[in-house]
């Protein structure tokens, strides 16, 4: 069966996020007040074959640990459908 997976990769809590901070600092100048806690991460979409949804999820999580995310500084979330 073919599944669609969506992977969200974000920097772990406590790891500084210069991208998010830079955007946050720039927003007021563009007329957006009251915006905060901006964090920037990655989003990966893919399709894969698996016997069932649990196997698909396990496979994608495994890929995240090995390739798609950098577990030293990033955490990830997987959604499969």
């Amino acid at each position, binding site marked *: 069966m073919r599944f669609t997976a969506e992977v969200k990769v974000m920097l772990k809590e406590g*790891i*500084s*996020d*210069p991208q998010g*901070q830079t955007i946050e*600092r720039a927003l007021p100048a563009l007329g957006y007040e009251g915006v905060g806690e901006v964090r920037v991460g990655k989003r990966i979409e893919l399709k894969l074959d698996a016997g069932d949804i649990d196997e698909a999820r396990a496979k994608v999580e495994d890929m995240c640990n090995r390739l798609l995310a*950098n577990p*030293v*500084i990033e955490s990830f979330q997987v959604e499969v459908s």
Partner: protein
Amino acid sequence: MKTVHRELGLTDAEFDQIVARLGREPSYTELAMFSVMWSEHCSYKSSRNHLKNLPTEGDRILVGPGEGAGIIEVAPGLAVAWKIESHNHPSFVEPFNGAATGIGGIVRDILSMGARPIALLDSLRFGPPDDPRTRFLIDGVVHGISSYGNSIGVPTVGGEMVFEDCYAENPLVNVACLGVIEHRLMHGRGEGQGNAAILFGSSTGRDGIGGASVLASAEFDDGSLDKRPSVQVGDPFTEKLLIEASLELIRKDLVVGFQDLGAGGISCPTCEMTSKAGTGIELELGSVHLREPDMEPFEVMISESQERMLAVVEQERVDEVVAVCSKWGLEARVIGRITDTGKVQVRSGGEMIVDVSADALAEEGPVYDRPYERPRWIDELQGSDPGAAPPADLKEAFLSVLSSPRVASKRWVWSQYDHMIFLGTIEGPGSDAAVIRLPDRKEAVAITTDGNGRYCYLDPYEGARLSVAEAARNVACTGARPAAVTNCLNFGNPEKPGVMWQFAEAVRGIGAACAALGTPVTGGNVSFYNETNGRAIYPTPVIGTLGILEDASAAVPMCWAEPGHDVVLLGTTSPGDLGGSEYAKVINGTVGGLPPELDIEAERMLIETLVEVAPLVSSAHDPADGGLAISLAESAIAGGIGVRVDDLGRDDLHLMLFSETPSRAVVTCPPGLLKAVLAVARMHGTPARRIGETGGDDIVLGTLSVALQEARGRHDDGLTKHLSATLV
């Protein structure tokens, strides 16, 4: 409290020393500060006794070891800063950010002297490149350096990339930086009672807590990859702002003293600057600009958040300083005042939580005379086969050495680095030393890093001398006169007598060679505990030599300019110099025997010769890894011109081609100038003889003949063919 100090990396004896010094038990925050300031990384407790014997003085040396960077006078009123740092452990844990923050750190060291950073070198060592984990490390490290260095607009103009099994679990990432004093030399002194201490740059977060004590001053084991909270993320944009804001503050004469925050966080500049000035400091922790609101005082004091500086400023200038910082978009806050107490005193919420002598933290850390002993195995190693056996096929051997990852072209690396910005890169990556013209001047400096762990493994004293000689020779090949040395000493666990012996021998070798060559040591860095699971790296001193060239346009390239030029070998080849050579490793799979013997006086005369023949020659390049054959091939490939060499002596051809005898160089000149070149060499007592001529489409070395095209192909893809496999 009884065991907390151990978690912080302090020994029981060190803890007792702290209690005795204070006359009481330290507070937790005080203990944390001692743990970073007394760490191996910050206090040099195991190395001090040896380093103090290095030669450090010379006519051109304006500032020697002990400050952010060495300062060397290039011409009257023109001075440069020069320094090297290691970021080995962080780069193993998180290659991209580890290497990136390594660049950030060395750049701030240079900046702290009031110098604008204008060039970087990266000296890298990894395990064999066909291992996937190594490929991941290489890609991360190179990308980290490129992304940080390129963003801050400092060119990376050269470096090294070496592969050995011993670095597989402990890669080395050393980075050197060159700066030029723009307005005036700064000193890290916290002078003037009542002056304000201003922290500016990034906010302080939990990143890198205990980096100096936990990451840089301990061995690795399998659990080390979990030492994650210590990982720092670099922010090159803020670093760029920090550079410009700092230089503007100096240009406007707004600061009294100035220091970067690196290992040890706020603790480090506060105690060091006041200890040097004989003053004291009072800090209000509540004034520190925090990234995370709920930080503990000890975390604030030792956090190694990147991209921060501390300036000491007269009260009347505070507003102007804040204004300059905010023009550059940087937060700047007064976090304390200079006092006359000789103490670092820290208040948090009205309560005094730190009250210790600045000297105790900065100057009076433990100093160890660690026992050392020549290890037994070294005799067996030196007595083993050096690997000089002849190859089955000379041509294939030549191509194998030429395409070994260590010798092959590093273009894959340096094409990812901006190496041209500032319009000063006269000779860039690919040459023996980079030649950097100083901004808006005709003077240039030549800079290089060199280290040979294999030689040092066979004989650390001789290996260290050879590294100093090679670095000086590389500089001299460009026509520059070697003037100063910075060094990064990468070793295993100093608590092991065998490692300590390697260290002591290497430092002795560096001292001897630097003294003989007249290149004082202006600073450096020691990185111990380069061991994983008890296996140490080869002892690896990396030497960064800086030379001076009065006229940038006189720089000598390493590539051949024209066909029909005479090829002259300076120095003599000792055909037995194959111990620890690239040939022995690649062809015979051996690292054994003795390294080549260095005659330092011959080296000195060769360097004199190279400097003096510079106006006469069209190229100069020294035989190093791989020997004469490789050196000739490199110049031919780079120039796109072949070569014919007939006069290679009587010995076995492979010994003549691949011996790594030091104190040699190959120069080329138009035929009309041959006599003059030979005469200069004779005057300095350097053996010199014409061995052939440039030209044609082949590299012909005695009976060996290879098409230039084929040689180039193998040299070009020797490294990349390993890397391209599965990199993302």
